[in-house]
């Protein structure tokens, strides 16, 4: 049954140095507040998994929290590069990171398989791509019925998944609405999970088939108002596209980045950004 914790306590309890961590949210509902708390608590040697690393992982990589990144598209959506990611991969700053890359289809299937408790996902994928040459976690199996070769990838089974959602009720049941990405899968695939929410309400007030994650499938819930900012929360606040563009300038330069991090994360206490 989900426990209501402060964001500080949830991260302190569930994110260990060296852990494998998923922070998900496909453009929408990216758990920035939680990511910043991970940076503030100085977590190290993390293996981060995420389809689209986005600014939040750029910040975690630049802050030196990350040992390895598993991903399928590592850019600033609609803007360009993630410069902290590139600096780590190309020049080893602040230190070299290991990367393992997939396609979106494979990672989406790997999350699905993780949620389904399976060790692998099977898909019609990677045909003719060089990705299997540089990722030894991509294998091929033959369908026992048709003989067709199909790709297989290990399922995602993180130590902890962190997602942001619109709201929880007082029993800890969570509504995710809009672009739901792989959030539910990330939570169900993980050993532990933290869900940050905009607010806690008496009644979720949902339709019969809404995307609701039951409280008994979640470890901890932390209220984090505007916890997805500068990404967005459908029904609460829009994406700050201007900040995404400004990030390009901030992140290009190590000093500018470090200053930004000091001002907006380290010295921002528990307040968000």
């Amino acid at each position, binding site marked *: 049954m989900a426990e209501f914790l402060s964001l500080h306590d949830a991260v302190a309890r569930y994110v260990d140095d060296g852990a494998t961590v998923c922070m998900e949210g496909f*453009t*929408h509902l990216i758990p920035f507040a939680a990511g910043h708390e991970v940076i503030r608590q100085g977590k190290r040697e993390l293996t981060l998994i995420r389809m689209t690393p986005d600014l939040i992982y750029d910040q975690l990589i630049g802050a030196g929290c990350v040992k390895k990144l598993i991903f399928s*598209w590592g850019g600033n959506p609609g803007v360009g590069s993630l410069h902290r990611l590139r600096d780590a991969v190309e020049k080893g700053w602040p230190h070299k990171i290991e990367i393992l890359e997939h*396609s*979106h*289809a494979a990672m989406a299937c790997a999350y699905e398989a993780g949620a389904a408790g399976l060790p692998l996902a099977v898909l019609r994928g990677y045909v003719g791509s060089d*990705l299997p040459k540089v990722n030894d976690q991509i294998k091929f199996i033959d369908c026992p019925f048709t003989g067709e070769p199909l790709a297989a990838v290990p399922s995602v089974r993180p130590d902890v998944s962190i997602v942001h959602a619109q709201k929880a009720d007082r029993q800890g049941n969570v509504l995710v609405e809009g*672009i739901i990405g792989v959030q539910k899968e990330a939570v169900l695939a993980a050993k532990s999970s933290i869900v940050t929410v905009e607010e806690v309400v008496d009644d979720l007030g949902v339709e019969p088939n809404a995307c609701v994650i039951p409280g008994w499938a979640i470890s901890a819930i932390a209220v984090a108002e505007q916890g997805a900012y500068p990404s967005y929360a459908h029904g609460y606040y*829009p994406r700050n596209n201007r900040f995404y563009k400004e990030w390009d300038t901030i992140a290009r330069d190590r000093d500018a980045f470090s200053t930004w991090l000091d001002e907006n994360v380290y010295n921002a206490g528990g307040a968000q950004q």
Partner: protein
Amino acid sequence: MSTDYTSAEMMTVTAARALENGMTCFVGIGLPSEAANLARLTHAPDVVLIYESGTLQTMPEVLPLSIGDGELCESALTTVSVPEMFRYWLQGGHVSVGFLGTAQIDRFANLNTTLIGDYAAPKVRLPGGGGAPEIATCAGEVFVTLKHSKRTFVKDVDFVTTLGFGRDGKGRDGVPNIGKGPTRVITDLCMMRPDPDTKELTVTSLHPGVTKEDVIEATGWEIRFTDALETTPEPYARELEVLRELKERTARHHAGEAPGERS
């Protein structure tokens, strides 16, 4: 070249025209998204646009900056999970055309969005595959659109992120359950199609005012031209008007969207 429109507009209009009304299009962000929405707002009102963020049949008023802007969800018929998007809608065979951009493309229309240089020590690390590898193989066919230059049009890509026709043009031969692959490449200079036999990209139409030499100069291999080389039809005034309005609306929207620093 006429001064009534830019080469970028020519590219977008030509790319838009490639989409037929009633097609179901899996849309890449950036140029493909611009072209696909222009098509929807002009000759192809019933084109179905799908974005990998899970938004099915979306009709955005403004162009999304990211692949998962709120606009896409709010104007969609429905929004599904990302696993469902890739499994049921793309792999399940409901996409007639995938519309992609790329950083590099080679003569066999293979796409590289992974890196420049060597994988272990890249000169430039690019974002990676994203949805493209399976869009390119699961969609019925693929359109590619990007600006033409020697840097982007290379003889052999450094890394095949996404299959065109393979290193030898035979990459799809005998593969079960695979789409036709890239059938059109639309740039700011011309339209290319794969040669029916060799699958090498061949210029089939030059945009108005563009010469063969312009294309040769901007292409990293000895580019061929079809015998029946055509001139790409110019944009209609209506297309340019709709495109410019769309881009203005988009610029206004994105500029007005920053709520500033949070307290």
